[in-house]
């Protein structure tokens, strides 16, 4: 039921959402999140690195945990790796549930964990060259919300 995918090539989030929606037409509510490379701040390119033995298994474990925590009818976690450009999709999370609040919480939870606990390393290219991005303090605050 859960679907975790690591994509080494560009993907079309709208097409993925359409396919997900078509698979879950009987769910009451579907929440999706698309994260994209921002077209601002002078970022020319973004690179995400993954570590083959751990990144996808970690995403699969996150999908499992998310599904165990909320009653979902479907879940998709899709993350890009490689070099991306402004407007390119980085990540897509889709959560289908009978009840709206479960779908919102599950997508929010999955995103917080992808952001600060999944095995990706990110660097940005600007006019001054490439620079590695460290996690922000907010990312850790976001994730701590779920440790009740």
């Amino acid at each position, binding site marked *: 039921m859960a679907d975790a995918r690591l994509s080494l090539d560009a993907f079309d989030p709208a097409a993925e959402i359409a396919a997900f929606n078509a698979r879950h037409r009987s769910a009451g509510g579907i929440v999706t999140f698309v*994260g994209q490379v921002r077209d601002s701040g002078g970022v020319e390119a973004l690179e*995400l*690195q993954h*570590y083959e*033995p*751990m990144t996808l*298994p970690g995403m699969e474990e996150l999908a499992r945990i998310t599904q165990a925590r909320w009653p979902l009818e479907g879940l998709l976690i899709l*993350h890009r790796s490689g070099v991306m450009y402004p407007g390119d999709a*980085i*990540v897509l999370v889709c959560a289908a549930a009978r009840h709206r609040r479960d779908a919102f919480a599950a997508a929010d939870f999955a*995103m917080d964990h*992808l*952001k*600060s*606990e*999944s*095995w*990706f*390393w*990110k*660097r940005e290219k600007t006019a001054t060259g490439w620079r*590695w*991005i*460290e*996690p*922000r303090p907010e*990312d850790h605050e976001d994730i701590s919300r779920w440790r009740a």
Partner: protein
Amino acid sequence: MAKLVFMGRLEDVAGTAEMSVSPGPVEQVLASLDPALAVQLLGEKVRMAHNGRLLTDVGGVVLANGDELAFLPPVSGG
């Protein structure tokens, strides 16, 4: 031989993404590296994974032929 893998900014520090090393205890492998690199690899925010499994402590870990030891700085996905 065994393999060291450097992720994220550690690749820049090491000047390479991967390095072949002689098998043996991890402490011994680290001692054979450029000290400036070894200091970075042992930074408190760097985690290590032995054949894809996170290590909680390197004490007693021995790299066998074909083993892989990855150095993982703080992540940032999404």
